[in-house]
């Protein structure tokens, strides 16, 4: 039997190759994702481990939970002496890590993306860096920077540059270049090392430090040292060994990769596999139908039904195995490609360790390749087993329809309904976000599968619509193509379904992104209502000094600075707290009030809070209730709920309090953005230029008009959207292989017809056109169903997320583009099959009798 299978595969090389490709691309995406994410997490592990090389134990301020953005808690510098006094300590050094970008030739390095670190210089053995050339800074105003920065920006030892600090740009001189241990790449991150006194002055941390690095005396293990430090120091600090600390820091970053990036990329891999499964199913169905005589012959010479079934499953097994092996190799290529894609979309890139071949990943690749192929081939294999022996003798024999095939439409309908129900339940439940997403993904999967099965009923109608213009073209190609496409609606539907999935998801994200964009831009217009908006260039807060600099610019009327931190609220969980200047907020912001009025904002300094409606609902807070809040460092305070507003986009997930009460409890001082209004009658653009001049000392801050900011947000959403398009393009490419496969198989089936058509006067180009039009009709059907389904799904999602401010807006132009892309896909897919059809000798076709 195995020889029979292999001989069969050799005979149908092209088909086997195309079929394997359909699945191997999905395998490549899955393994590529696993390879890449393990590369990234290992890179971060390496970064933090080598940063802690000489650190046996690290002492940090105790926190109950992570504060928000850069609100890093501090210790008094005097703690260093306390630490030094404890038994087993060989050396202890104060540490400060801050964010501050190099400014070279007046240009701000690294506008977005990877962080720019500023470290206080530490004595040996605590240095995380290795000196490549020059020396570490000694005097005030001297710094060492990472070699990568020097290389990319053309600076070196002796060069002058600036550091963007909360106090503005400080001039410094480079005295040394460092590398970060044995890391192949730290991405686009920059490192600046300066004497500790300078860093403290720049970051207004005089007398304060972030942590203390400790080394143990010979013979004292880090664990023992950590134990004695914990015993000897007050409860306001946390003590961890260097390794524990590195693991904890790495986890913060790698969690984001493992919990977000990996599942997100895997999802695209699974989509590709899902598309591939449709193609496998379709290809095997067609070949089983074409091999009726051969299968019947097997039965007549004594093969059992089971053996016939295994001959088909075995073929799938071989194809899946090949796809798994090649897909594994391609996965490494895919990982490499993804690094390039990220580099292109996220300037600065991400740190990546060398790729490793792991047995686990190899096993997954093989299991996925074989598993998906075999499962998709099961139904055709079962059908093959029903071929009666008589099929060997009779031309045009058919497989007896199975008992359940009658119920296919009903089953599909039920599946579609179940899918929609799952999506709705995922949207409306209060469960964990990951679980909800999973439920919704499963629901969408069911909907796509069911629509794929049901679409055969729509094929004749859609073929007529899409084929209409083609049939009007001179020559018979259009009419023949339309008839060919509708001859076997199930086959056309399954072929189109593969493309439908890709196009459907593209349409879905397009509509969803449009809604997201609209919800953001509406919020900027309606909630912020400012003329100018000041934000940081990277995802970090901007220096507090920018508030005064902006407010004192002539022409600026009011400035609202959004300073935020995390708080733990008794009985209501974590919240984001916004500390605003009451008077400016009242005059500027346009919150949508559920209960209360803008006047409440003006009274916030008296200790009241206004709460966002979603948070009020989930935390069960009503007007008049008291919020008992604690900061990440354990400071407690209380606020009376004065009003409730609705804002899912900007001041969301928590509540707004006055600036003064905020500063008494929370550590954050740097705002994440400023909103400014201009004096009546002033031109916002002119005032913007003036503000930009005032903000010169803070190159991290960027001022934009309302309209510019809205464009910026749109662009950000777009760039994510394009990244999704790139990932979904893979599915579309896979579906192309499906169309090619079906066309090639159909042409083989119709060799004699093609010969007849050529004999009665169909030219080669008319024949090619006939194949191309059939392809276009098929892909057009996939495109139309996909777009309709994608928009419908997006509508359900937007409806379910209306609370989050997502609105349903249809990007018509883009949908038209997607349809054009589907048609183009059809044209592209037809190239090879049309050439093969045209190469057929009409005589060969007729000799077939």
């Amino acid at each position: 039997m195995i020889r029979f299978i292999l001989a069969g595969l050799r005979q149908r090389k092209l088909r086997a190759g195309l079929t394997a490709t359909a699945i191997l691309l999905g395998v490549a995406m899955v393994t590529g994702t696993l390879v890449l994410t393990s590369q990234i997490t290992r890179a971060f592990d390496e970064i933090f481990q080598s940063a802690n090389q000489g650190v046996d134990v690290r002492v940090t301020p105790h926190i109950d939970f992570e504060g928000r953005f850069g609100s890093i808690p501090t210790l008094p510098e005097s703690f260093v002496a306390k630490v030094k006094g404890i038994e087993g300590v060989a050396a202890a050094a104060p540490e400060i890590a801050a964010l501050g970008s190099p400014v070279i030739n007046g240009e701000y390095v690294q506008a977005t993306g990877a962080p720019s670190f500023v470290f206080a210089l530490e004595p040996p053995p605590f240095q995380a860096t290795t000196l490549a050339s020059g020396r570490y800074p000694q005097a005030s105003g001297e710094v060492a920077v990472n070699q990568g920065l020097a290389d990319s920006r053309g600076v070196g030892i002796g060069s002058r540059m600036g550091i963007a600090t909360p106090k503005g740009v400080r001039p410094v001189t480079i005295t040394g270049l460092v590398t970060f241990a044995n890391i192949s790449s730290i991405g686009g991150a920059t490192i600046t090392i300066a004497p500790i006194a300078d860093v403290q002055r720049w970051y207004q941390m005089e007398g304060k430090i972030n942590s203390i690095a400790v080394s143990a005396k010979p013979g004292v293990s880090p664990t023992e040292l950590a134990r004695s430090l914990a015993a000897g120091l007050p409860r306001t600090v946390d003590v961890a060994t260097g390794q524990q600390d590195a693991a904890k820091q790495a986890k913060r970053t790698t969690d984001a990769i493992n919990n977000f990036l990996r599942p997100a990329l895997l999802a695209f891999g699974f989509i590709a596999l899902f598309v591939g499964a449709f193609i496998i199913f379709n290809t095997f169905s067609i070949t089983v139908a074409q091999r009726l005589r051969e299968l019947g012959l097997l039965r007549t010479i004594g093969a059992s039904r089971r053996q016939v079934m295994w001959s088909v499953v075995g073929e799938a097994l071989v194809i899946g195995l090949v796809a798994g092996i090649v897909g594994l190799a391609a996965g490494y290529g895919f990982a490499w490609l993804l690094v390039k894609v990220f580099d292109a979309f996220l300037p600065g890139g991400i740190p990546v360790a060398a790729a490793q071949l792991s047995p686990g990943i190899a096993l997954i690749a093989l299991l996925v390749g074989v598993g998906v192929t075999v499962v998709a081939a099961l139904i055709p294999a079962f059908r093959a087993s029903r071929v009666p022996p008589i099929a060997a003798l009779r031309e045009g024999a058919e497989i007896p329809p199975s008992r359940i095939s009658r119920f296919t439409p009903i089953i599909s309908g039920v599946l579609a309904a179940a899918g929609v129900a799952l999506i709705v339940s995922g949207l409306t439940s209060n469960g964990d976000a990951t679980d909800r997403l999973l439920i919704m993904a499963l629901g969408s999967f069911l909907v796509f599968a069911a629509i794929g099965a049901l679409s055969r009923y729509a094929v004749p109608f859609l073929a007529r619509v899409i084929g209409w213009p083609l049939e009007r073209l001179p020559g018979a190609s259009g009419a023949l193509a339309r008839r060919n496409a509708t001859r076997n609606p199930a086959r056309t539907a399954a072929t189109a379904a593969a493309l439908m999935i890709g196009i459907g998801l593209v349409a879905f994200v397009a509509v969803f992104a449009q809604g997201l964009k609209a919800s953001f831009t509406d919020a900027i217009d309606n909630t912020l209502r400012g003329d100018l908006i000041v934000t940081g260039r990277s995802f970090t807060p901007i220096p507090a000094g920018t508030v005064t600099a902006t407010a004192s610019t002539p022409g600026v009327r009011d400035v609202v600075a959004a300073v935020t931190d995390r708080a733990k609220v008794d009985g209501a969980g974590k919240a984001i707290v916004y500390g605003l200047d009451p008077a400016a907020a009242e005059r500027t912001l346009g919150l949508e009030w559920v209960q209360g009025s803008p006047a409440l904002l003006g009274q916030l300094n008296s200790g009241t809070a206004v709460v966002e409606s979603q948070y009020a609902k989930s935390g069960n807070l009503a007007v008049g209730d008291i919020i008992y809040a604690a900061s990440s460092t354990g400071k407690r305070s209380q606020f009376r709920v004065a009003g409730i507003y609705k804002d899912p986009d900007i001041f969301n997930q928590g509540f707004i309090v006055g600036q003064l009460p905020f500063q008494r409890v929370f550590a954050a001082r740097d705002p994440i953005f400023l909103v400014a209004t201009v004096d009546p009658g002033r031109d916002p653009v002119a005032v913007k230029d003036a503000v930009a001049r005032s903000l010169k000392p803070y190159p991290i801050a960027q001022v934009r008009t309302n309209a510019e900011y809205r464009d910026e947000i749109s662009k950000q959403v777009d760039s994510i959207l394009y990244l999704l398009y790139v990932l979904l393009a893979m599915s579309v490419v896979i579906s192309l292989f499906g169309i090619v496969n079906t066309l090639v198989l159909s042409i083989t089936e119709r060799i004699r017809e093609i010969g007849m058509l050529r004999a009665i006067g169909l030219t080669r180009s008319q024949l090619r056109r006939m194949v191309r039009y059939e392809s276009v009709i098929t892909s057009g059907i996939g495109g139309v169903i996909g777009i309709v389904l994608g928009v419908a799904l997006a509508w359900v999602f937007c409806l379910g997320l209306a609370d989050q401010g997502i609105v349903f807006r249809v990007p018509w132009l883009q949908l038209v583009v997607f349809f054009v892309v589907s048609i183009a896909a059809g044209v592209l897919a037809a190239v090879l099959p049309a050439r093969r059809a045209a190469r057929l000798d009409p005589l060969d076709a007729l000799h077939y009798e």
Partner: protein
Amino acid sequence: MSTNGDGIAVHAEGLGRRYGEGEAAIDALADVTVSFPKGQFAAVMGPSGSGKSTLLHCLAGLDRPTSGEVTIDGTALSGLSDRDLTVLRRTAIGFIFQSFNLLPMLTARENVELPLRIAGRLDSARVDATLADVALGDRATHRPAELSGGQQQRVAIARALVSHPTVIFADEPTGNLDSTSGHEILHLLRRAVDEGGRTVVMVTHDPRAAVVADRVLMLSDGRVVMDRPGMTADEIYDAVRTLDSP
């Protein structure tokens, strides 16, 4: 359509067709020279492997002869590109096959329309008339699967006639039919010659079919061994018997 060629529809001069190379080469046709005047119904006969199908394919421009020249209605085929040859087949030649070769997804009428649509000059009146000629006006909307073998072959004849070709090549048109249906088909071809002025070249191995023809050519081992007009059934039987047992 050109009318030159002195009333000769198809002419073959020194036609040879060799398959394979060297020692294993087989001459399916060897130096065949033959003319078919317009308005003639010719039957080509011969035992299996005599080269009758090869002759038909070469005459129709489906197969390229290795030597010699075919001229259809004054046009030499050897100089034509694939495209020109296809257009010639479309305008000057009609085909009828043993296995009908209708498109299953098209109705009878659509199958008949096909050559005109391919040429981009659909003429409904002509299609109607042609369908009426083969007595299938009432079956126009049926698909091949809903028609009997004889009816399907009548559709095929209509498809061959509809473009008013100079010559119709028929390859065993009665081979898959019972004798009644076969007779109908031959009658239709006869009428196409007598009333429509067409030229028919029919390959057959059935003497009862050949008897309808104006002229019978007998092929053996790629050569014309007999070429006689107006043979009776008995004469044809005798000729076949002689060829089969040398």
